[in-house]
């Protein structure tokens, strides 16, 4: 099968961006800034707890239980953020069998053989973009970027639930909605979506359902393959 092309820049801006007109349009520089900000925020949560633990132990070793509680906080807080990120890929309740089958058929027509097979195994669609490699789920997407492949960006985005019938869509249709929007305007898609988490890929991987992990592996493989073909 031919290698899927990177998402081409569309002449159209996603109309949904009008609803979030105050947000700067996402681009490479903005993603870098946002990633750095998430790292600093995480450090601001973790370092004081670790510092307090060290200080307590220095003052009085009998404070070990409290120090351990501080270390646990330092560990748990990033994990909670990562859980929030992993939740964007969580499958939603299924529709009836026939709509699911029809929706999966349409989605299969939109993607290549490899992506179709990956979706059948993991419930996620892999899409090569200009910003990076996307894994599109039913209510969100995960972005891995070429320049910092160990960082994951988790976006919460879904079919507008205020729209008529949106809540009853089969899973394949939910993904197809997001995929078409992503293909039409990748930067607009990332602008409309809410960033739930940006941080260590391994933290997200640990927290997604086991059957979805091969999709993350496939995305990393795609990044590696692309990195080696870039000039």
């Amino acid at each position: 099968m031919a290698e899927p092309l990177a998402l081409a820049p569309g002449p159209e801006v996603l109309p949904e961006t009008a609803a979030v007109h105050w947000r700067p349009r996402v681009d490479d520089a903005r993603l870098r800034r946002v990633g750095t900000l998430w790292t600093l925020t995480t450090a601001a949560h973790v370092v004081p707890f670790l510092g307090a633990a060290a200080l307590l132990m220095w003052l009085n070793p009998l404070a070990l239980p409290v120090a351990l509680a501080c270390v646990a906080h330092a560990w748990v807080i990033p994990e909670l953020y990562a859980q929030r990120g992993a939740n964007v890929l969580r499958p939603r309740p299924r529709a009836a069998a026939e709509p699911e089958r029809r929706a999966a058929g349409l989605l299969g027509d939109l993607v290549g053989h490899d992506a179709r097979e990956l979706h059948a195994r993991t419930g996620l669609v892999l899409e090569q973009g200009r910003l990076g490699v996307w894994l599109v789920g039913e209510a969100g997407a995960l972005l891995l970027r070429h320049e910092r492949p160990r960082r994951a960006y988790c976006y919460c985005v879904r079919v507008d639930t205020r729209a008529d019938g949106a809540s009853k869509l089969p899973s394949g249709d939910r993904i197809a909605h997001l995929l078409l929007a992503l293909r039409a305007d990748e930067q607009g898609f990332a602008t409309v979506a809410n960033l739930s988490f940006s941080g260590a890929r391994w933290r997200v991987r640990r927290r997604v359902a086991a059957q979805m992990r091969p999709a993350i592996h496939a995305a990393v493989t795609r990044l590696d393959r692309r990195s080696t073909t870039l000039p």
Partner: protein
Amino acid sequence: MSKLIRMDHTGHSTLAEWTSDDPAAVEAAVDAFRAELDRGYLAMVSTGPGHAEQVRELPLDAPLVILRLPISGG
């Protein structure tokens, strides 16, 4: 044969099928297309691997036109 489909709770519904040499079918397709746009649907056509485009007029030569609902941040 071109198709206009809407993604909905059934998986998808075919709203119109036409060929450019059938004016009645084209007219019916255009009417169906406009009615769905008025309901808030957005029309998309695939323009190659990894690329889709939003259209505001029914592209008569496109093999498949897909109507989708707007997206929003979750």
